[in-house]
């Protein structure tokens, strides 16, 4: 028993010269494998599911994006980068890209300002606190499609409530479904309705983690509520704000439900006024059944999100680094060097 294992060990292992060959019993070997392999086995279900449900579609999409693909017959012709070239040549694509960023900015900026304000209000001593906090989250629970339907009725050009209300102030009917800018405002309103409360609660949680001593000290120093907000609350919120900004960026670039529900056709308007990238992608895929082009577009979108994610990461790092308190931030190479040095010390 032991002999065979030793044989196998020497045959496959080719031990480095100068190192003594250690002879292990089978059970010792088992326990070593247990220590080394078990953790991987325990986490493997996730990775198997990921490989099947995540990695496979990604690779499949990549392959299809180079083909003129017939989804029904599951066959296609290799066309190289033609689909990518086609997408990049479409004026609609660039319009959609512009719309996506416009809607993103129109929704994220007011949303964050409003969320911070609401959070600051909820952080104060008010009556029926839980009630107010839950109310802030309520819109988040409503399904986006339902929000779309409701707002679609509100923002109807002729018969909509919003134009009626604006009429009381003498503001003439706004062509929500005609002018690109106003359609973006209307869609951004739906996004804000849904996400402001959610972000406010995240910011509220961060606010409550700020040590109250800071405020006491500030009060003693004579700082009023506004000064406290600017000099204590906002700086302490920075990491949370960055998290909120990153998630809303990713969500903003993938905006789909709201523009899709904005009119009866769901194709971004007759003049592509509110056509977003994902809406265009969906239309090419499920409207025209051209999955080659849709896949190419999905990859382009992926690269755009990746690029923006990287920019976000760099900005975040430079902002978070001077927060301090956690020691120097090391690069991977520096960490590896440090680990090597520690091992050498331990061996010696």
């Amino acid at each position, binding site marked *: 028993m032991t002999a065979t294992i030793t044989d196998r060990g020497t045959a496959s292992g080719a031990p480095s010269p100068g190192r003594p060959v250690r002879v292990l019993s089978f*059970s010792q070997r*088992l*326990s070593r494998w*247990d220590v080394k392999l*078990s953790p991987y*086995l*325990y986490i*493997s*279900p996730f990775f*198997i*599911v990921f490989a*099947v*449900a995540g990695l496979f579609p990604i690779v499949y999409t990549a392959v299809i994006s180079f083909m003129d693909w017939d*989804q*029904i*017959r*599951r066959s296609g012709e290799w066309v190289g980068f033609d689909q990518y070239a*086609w997408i990049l*040549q*479409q*004026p*609609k694509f660039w319009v959609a890209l512009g719309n996506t960023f416009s809607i993103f900015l129109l929704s994220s900026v007011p949303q964050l300002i409003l969320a911070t304000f609401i959070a600051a209000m909820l952080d104060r001593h008010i009556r029926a606190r839980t009630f107010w906090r839950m109310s802030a989250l309520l819109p988040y629970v409503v399904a986006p499609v339902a929000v779309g339907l409701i707002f*679609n*009725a509100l923002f*109807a*050009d*002729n*018969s*909509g409530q919003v134009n009626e209300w604006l009429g009381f102030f003498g503001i003439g009917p706004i*062509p929500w*479904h*005609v002018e690109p800018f106003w359609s973006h405002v209307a869609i951004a309103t739906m996004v804000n309705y849904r996400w402001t409360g959610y972000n406010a609660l995240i910011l509220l949680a961060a606010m409550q983690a700020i040590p109250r001593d800071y405020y006491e000290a500030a009060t003693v120093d004579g700082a009023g509520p506004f000064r406290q907000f600017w000099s204590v609350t906002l700086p302490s919120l920075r990491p949370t704000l960055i998290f909120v900004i990153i998630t809303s960026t990713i969500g903003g670039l993938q905006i789909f439900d709201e523009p899709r529900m904005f*009119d*009866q*056709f769901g*194709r971004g308007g*007759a*003049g592509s*006024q509110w056509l977003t990238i994902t809406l265009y992608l969906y239309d090419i895929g*499920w*409207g*025209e*059944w051209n999955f080659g082009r849709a896949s190419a577009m999905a990859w382009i979108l992926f690269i755009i999100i990746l690029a923006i994610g990287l920019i976000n990461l760099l900005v975040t790092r430079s902002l978070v680094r001077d927060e301090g308190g956690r020691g120097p931030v090391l690069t991977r190479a520096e960490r590896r060097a440090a680990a090597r040095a520690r091992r050498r010390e331990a061996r010696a």
Partner: protein
Amino acid sequence: MTHRALRRTLAGVALASVGGLVLAGCTGGNGDGGGDAGGDIELTIATFNDFGYSDELLQEYEDAHPGVTIVHNRAATSNDARANFFQKLGNTGLADIEAIEIDWLAEGMQYSDLLAPVPDDLKGRWLDWKEAAATDAEGNLIGYGTDIGPQAVCYRADLFEAAGLPTDREEVAGLFTTWDDLFAVGAEYKEKTGKPFLDSANSILQGLANQLEETYEDADGNVIATENPDVREMFDTVIEKGVPISAYAGQWSEDWYASMANGEFAAMLCPPWMHGIISGEAPDVTGWDIADVFPGGGSNWGGSYLTIPANGDNVEAAQELADWLTSPEIQARAFANVGAFPSQPDAYEMTEVSDATNEYFNDAPVGEINSNRAAAITVTPIKGPKYFQFHEALNQAVTRVFDGLETPEEAWDSWVTEVSAF
């Protein structure tokens, strides 16, 4: 075996079963269920909106065919059904009978080999153009026609009266025999009342397009959209004469629904299935009536087919059911149920159809009117797989002009650019 080894084996088994589950998840939902050897058959039929195939109707078939159980799934919209159909066609997971709408029939015709053809002895049951649209290059008819949408003109008699126009349905029918007449009456009405005459400009485009044999593609499948003078003429007509008298660019918007109830427009080009929409959306409006006429001859809008995926488990039983469902008798009853107008000429003789009147539309003889409108259709438009992409894009061009986003020439040019990329 040691304790650890046992644990490891168990982990291995667990792992294998997780993998198995995942794989099962990939293929799950594809199993068809039916097709038992014991003679008991479960037939699934998938439709959308409302075909008029009530539970009582299906129960009758079950009673006459012991051992057959029918499961009827209804999708909310034709679009849902379309997505489902094309995602599963050629694979598994489709119902034994799948309903498809004429709007995406052309897309489906590319895959006519994946559908079981209608037996030859049933050919001739449907109107010629209804059959022609669902017949592929090899001469296989792949759809059992259900309903059609022969258009007539619906009008508000009260608004017509106020504008000094005739109100009697026969007299009104005399007003709209040609498109020019319609546009002239519309312009006159607009001048007198200051209100739009028709509901939407794109419904005029729809009516015109369905009167052309070749629009965007010719009989050989060549794309002629941008060179075809008929298309340009149709676009110009809608822009010059249709847009000024229309309330909206397109139908189905919030505003369109709202103004149907408010009486903002006086007439609509309306297929039979629109009757239910009008009476449902504007229950309090009185004065709607139907004139037995359509400008420039007949024009069909909408209608559906039942198809049978060739790789289903119960193709023969499904063919039998589809045959029964689309027989003139049953379609006449479906018409009585929900107003889906039959595509089978024999059904027009049946009392459910011939004697049918619609109370909401001033007791208009809808059966007779629709039969006449169906008979007036002489053109079978050629619709290739991209027909609706072209048409939809042209609709958007009209909308852009309507909304003042582009001049007619700009809208046409951007349409040409857009469709050249298809």
